[in-house]
């Protein structure tokens, strides 16, 4: 039940050249998306706050790529990459972050609550951990409607792991046999707090054991391992009709949010992880598997262009708008 997944990189997955290219493209898209948001922030164009997932690209991309279209996800407050990978158009996500009416949520949610219901990507993760019980309800609806071809994956962080709601949800999913995949993105810190300071046992997979939930962990900077692990977990959930838990160990090289002065970690530590970034690592894998430098660079160029276009589009969109009467009516169906 408790095992570290080791990928055999020579097998099936690596043979799929197109797949590798798609994975790299998506990780770069996510990375450049975050860098673009950071740049817009620096120019004072992003209202409120934003949580970037630079360094964690493999978790969102690898996990979401392992899901099917009909599956649902609950993204986190650091969820741009998760939602984009589920298929949300980047221009709408960018417009949302810039508080525009054309945004994925019409400028009502913003960066922290990025979601796109059209691609089954939900997320209101302003209050950490609380999405887990809601995901159980989504899973329950699948079960009651006999939609047994789908699961719901709920993301949360290592810090959020300590919420009671997460544990209540795990118990509920287990006792009701719900098709819920719990994914803990363990990026080593919750804001400034390292995991060991808030968890007596830092092996978070053990949190799934008392509920009888199949729990595994994976190197979250190895995108193919993440993909494979989540794929297996999904298959298990569909086949057994039971929840599963995956811990993806990674590192956030960007700050927690805009206000982060990085007082809780050293420059050396950040540099070390930058060198181990999932994109750096996967580029190596690609080159070892027949891709040329030029091919890898081409992915870089076209994703840069896509992001620039999305940002230009988002900036050109009109602000979100409503009359007082309209806004008062919006919370109700």
């Amino acid at each position, binding site marked *: 039940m408790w095992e570290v997944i080791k990928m055999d990189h020579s097998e099936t997955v690596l043979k799929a050249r197109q797949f590798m290219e798609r994975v790299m493209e998506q990780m770069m898209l996510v990375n450049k998306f975050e860098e673009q948001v950071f740049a817009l922030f620096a120019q004072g164009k992003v209202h409120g706050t934003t949580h970037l997932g630079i360094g964690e690209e493999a978790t969102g991309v690898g996990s979401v790529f392992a899901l099917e279209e009909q599956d649902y996800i609950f993204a986190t407050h650091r969820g741009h990459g998760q939602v984009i990978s589920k298929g949300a158009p980047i221009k709408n996500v960018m417009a949302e972050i810039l508080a525009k009416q054309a945004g994925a949520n019409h400028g009502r949610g913003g960066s922290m609550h990025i979601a796109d219901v059209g691609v089954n990507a939900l997320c209101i993760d*302003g209050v950490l951990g*609380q999405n887990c019980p809601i995901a159980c309800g989504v899973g329950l609806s699948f079960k009651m409607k006999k939609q047994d071809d789908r699961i719901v994956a709920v993301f949360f962080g290592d810090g959020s792991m300590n919420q009671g709601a997460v544990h209540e949800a795990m118990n509920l999913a287990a006792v009701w046999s719900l098709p819920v995949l719990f994914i803990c993105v363990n990026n080593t810190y919750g804001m400034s707090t390292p995991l060991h300071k808030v968890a007596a046992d830092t092996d978070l997979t053990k949190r799934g054991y008392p509920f009888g939930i199949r729990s595994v962990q994976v190197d979250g900077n190895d995108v193919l391992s993440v993909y494979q692990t989540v794929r297996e977990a999904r298959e298990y959930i569909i086949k057994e009709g039971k929840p599963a838990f995956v811990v993806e160990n990674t590192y956030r090289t960007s700050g927690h949010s805009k206000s982060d002065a990085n007082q809780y970690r050293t420059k050396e530590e950040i540099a070390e992880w930058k060198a181990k970034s999932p994109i750096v690592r996967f580029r190596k894998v690609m080159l070892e598997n027949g891709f040329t430098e030029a091919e890898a660079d081409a992915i870089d160029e076209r994703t840069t262009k896509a992001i620039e276009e999305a940002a230009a589009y988002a900036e050109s969109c009109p602000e979100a708008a409503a009359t007082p009467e309209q806004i008062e009516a919006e919370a109700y169906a």
Partner: protein
Amino acid sequence: MREITYAEAVREAMSEEMRRDETVFFMGEDIGVYNGAFGVSKGMIQEFGEERVRETPISETGFMGAGVGAAMMGMRPIVELMFSDFMAVCYDQIINEAAKQRFMLGGAVKVPMVIRTASGGGTGAAAQHSQSLEQMYCHVPGLKVVIPSTPYDAKGLLKSAIRDDNCVIFLEQKLLYRTKGMVPDEDYTIPLGKADVKREGHDLSIITYGRTVQMSLAVADRLAKEGHEIEVVDIRTLSPLDKNAIIASVKKTGKAVVVHEAVEFGGFGGEIVSTIADSEAFYRLDAPIKRVGALFSPIPFNPILEKMVLPGEERIEKAVRGII
């Protein structure tokens, strides 16, 4: 028409809606063979089975959240929270999740969910099982809040709540569960957001809801013998509030007493008073508006003290006599 109890009215509303619409299901603690803490769900698990009468762990956050998620996917959960005081345990799921999903997702989802819960004191259950916390929900855009005072209202309003596409907090009055009243044999609903004049009069308006409706009617009957015609307006739905009905009544009578069981300070009565003060009814007032609610105290266990803290007919009558 037949006479049934308030608890039976609630059960009939749930069962009939579950027969009518298979997306409706019922969740809560010990709602199966135990019939729920107040016996409301008697016979339901036998009729609908464990899938649709879904007994939960004692995890209010967990199952409240499951209600939110299921509702977002097009189911219509009725979630029973055993005592309304326990809302504090799952406050986030109600306030930050159920009430916010639609707005924050830019209108892309609905949360058609009913949270049924037993509210109020007078049962000797002390300070953690006796509160009236409705005003804490009324302050939150995205929620609707309903408190029925009769079996007829309970059934008709609950059916509307189940059919409503929003999260409705349905606060049942523990001490009314066994009270009886006439309800039609056929299917009927009562629209949310509509007050009901439970007794007409032109000398003074008592604006109230929930258990204090019955007390107010008793006081009105007594004073009628002295020639005072008191109007009793049962607002039934606190959010959205039928402001027109309140204003119309006070315009007619020129005097208002606002009554509820909840703590008077910071209570929903303040909203009713300002509805009057902020309207044309203000110019028709012949006396200050009076409020009657619970003392600013946790509910004591001792029965004499509990009675002292909660509003009763005596205090309502005193307030009415003070301005009539």
